[in-house]
């Protein structure tokens, strides 16, 4: 009896696992099915490296948007990573217990706020502020990056904090027992030992940043161009799909799916790089034993 039960549970789990894989495979297949024709008729190279996106003139070059996505993501990581890691160190090691008990759930809640709310905040508060401070329309790469920074901070903070807190207590004890100060211990022992987890937090933050759509549409200005400065408006790959899918037909419609293919490829490449760094770090600091 228990043996049949056992195999039933195992089969059931197998089926659910397989069906989720099939689902993802089907989605990817569908995107390629719809996207490949555009790449074929317009030319793969022209599509990926083309500088002009003008569906009315049959111009489908996504290169400015690739740069746009990378630039927004890069700039927001540049702001969010130092802020997030500092905050994580503070929460894990320095904040008194009572403060931690308030701050941790607050930050975790921030991670759950829908992106449209952040976008709306950016649109109402940040865009006018930028307009007054730096001129222009206020819709810019910098504005989008700031909104994204706020959105990915909670992820980086909470995952990094977990990483720092899960460094074995013995390391901390050993370091303090040698006569090092608290800060020396954090800097030389806890932080290096937590780096694999911290890299994970950055990967997760990056994933969210590059995939974010709505909040960026609301504040980035969405002009298809390679930004000359951080105050120029930009369009991200994600925004491109969301903005135009409502009215696209024919090759234009296929080109939006092809944009999705490019986005997917880009995310995969970034993840591979990030995972490689993560793996390498693990091996070098732990000698393969961590």
């Amino acid at each position, binding site marked *: 009896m228990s043996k049949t039960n056992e195999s039933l549970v195992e089969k059931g789990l197998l089926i659910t696992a397989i069906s989720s894989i099939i689902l993802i495979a089907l989605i990817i297949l569908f995107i390629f099915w719809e996207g490949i024709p555009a790449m074929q008729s317009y030319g793969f190279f022209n599509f990926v490296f083309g500088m002009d996106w003008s569906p009315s003139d049959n111009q489908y070059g996504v290169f400015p948007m690739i740069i746009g996505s990378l630039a927004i993501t890069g700039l927001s990581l540049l702001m969010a990573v130092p802020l997030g890691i500092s905050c994580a160190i503070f929460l894990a090691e320095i904040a008194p*217990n009572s403060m931690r008990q308030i701050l941790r759930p607050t930050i975790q809640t921030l991670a759950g706020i829908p992106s449209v709310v952040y976008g709306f905040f950016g649109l109402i508060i940040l865009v006018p502020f930028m307009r007054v401070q730096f001129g222009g329309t206020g819709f810019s790469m910098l504005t989008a990056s700031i909104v994204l920074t706020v959105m990915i901070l909670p992820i980086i903070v909470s995952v990094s904090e977990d990483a720092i807190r899960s460094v*074995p207590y*013995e*390391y901390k*004890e*050993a*370091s*303090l*027992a*040698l*006569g*090092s*100060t608290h800060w*020396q211990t954090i800097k*030389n*022992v806890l932080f*290096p*030992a937590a780096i694999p987890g911290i890299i994970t937090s950055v990967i997760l933050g990056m994933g969210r940043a590059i995939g974010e759509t709505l909040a960026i549409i609301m504040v980035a200005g969405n002009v298809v161009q390679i930004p000359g400065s951080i105050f120029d408006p930009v369009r991200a790959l994600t925004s491109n799909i969301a903005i135009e899918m409502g009215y696209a037909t024919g090759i234009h419609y296929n080109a939006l799916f092809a944009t999705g293919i490019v986005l997917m490829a880009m995310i995969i490449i970034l993840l591979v790089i990030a995972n490689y760094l993560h793996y390498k770090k693990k091996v070098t*600091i*732990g*000698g*393969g*034993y*961590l």
Partner: protein
Amino acid sequence: MDRIEVQDLNVYFDDLHVLKDVNLNIKNNMVTALIGPSGCGKSTFIRTLNRMNDLIDTFHKTGTVLLDEEDIYDPKVDVVDLRKRVGMVFQKPNPFPKSIFDNVAYGLQIHGITDKRMLKEKVEESLKAAALWDEVKNKLDKSAMGLSGGQQQRLCIARTIAVEPEVILMDEPCSALDPISTTKIEDLIHRLKRDYTIIIVTHNMQQATRVSKCTAFFLNGEIIESGSTDKIFIEPCDQRTEDYITGRFG
């Protein structure tokens, strides 16, 4: 000469009374063993001597602990400096996830030694003193996590003596090790006692008799009996000590 004098020490974690009126003098350049059943306060006691208990929020104490006739709990005392003078080796070998060299160099670096040649010399000296040099001299840049448990523990001892403490506290340093590694550590203790004052917590009676000159027997947070190891193991004054060392409880 007494290196450490503990007078009427009472230690509490919240309301839990862990050490009760402990009085003990630790002699200079000698090995003192602390024995007693699990949970009797031996570890808490040695952690009081380098103020590691300060890390626990609920810790508080009464009584005095003198190191070279100075109260180590005096507000003027720099805890960081105290821990440099009173080193500690833990029960579970706990090398940092760094290279063998960096593990030993770490303590030196945080105390301001940056000169490469000087670091090299000191690391070699410490590893030799910890009887580990011959086994690791060709792989100093390899991770310490790849060493065996016994080697890791000797590395931890090397790391501790690199910063030149006056006193070394050892909290059951051999409990996680096999007999051969244990012998190596005990030999090491014999050699180190010439230069250092050593306090070792152990559950192993034979180990206490092998390495120590003085012994203190703890039971339920009190010192039942302390004195020369020979006397405690051959003719203990207290019935409870005799029961413990002959294995009738604990």
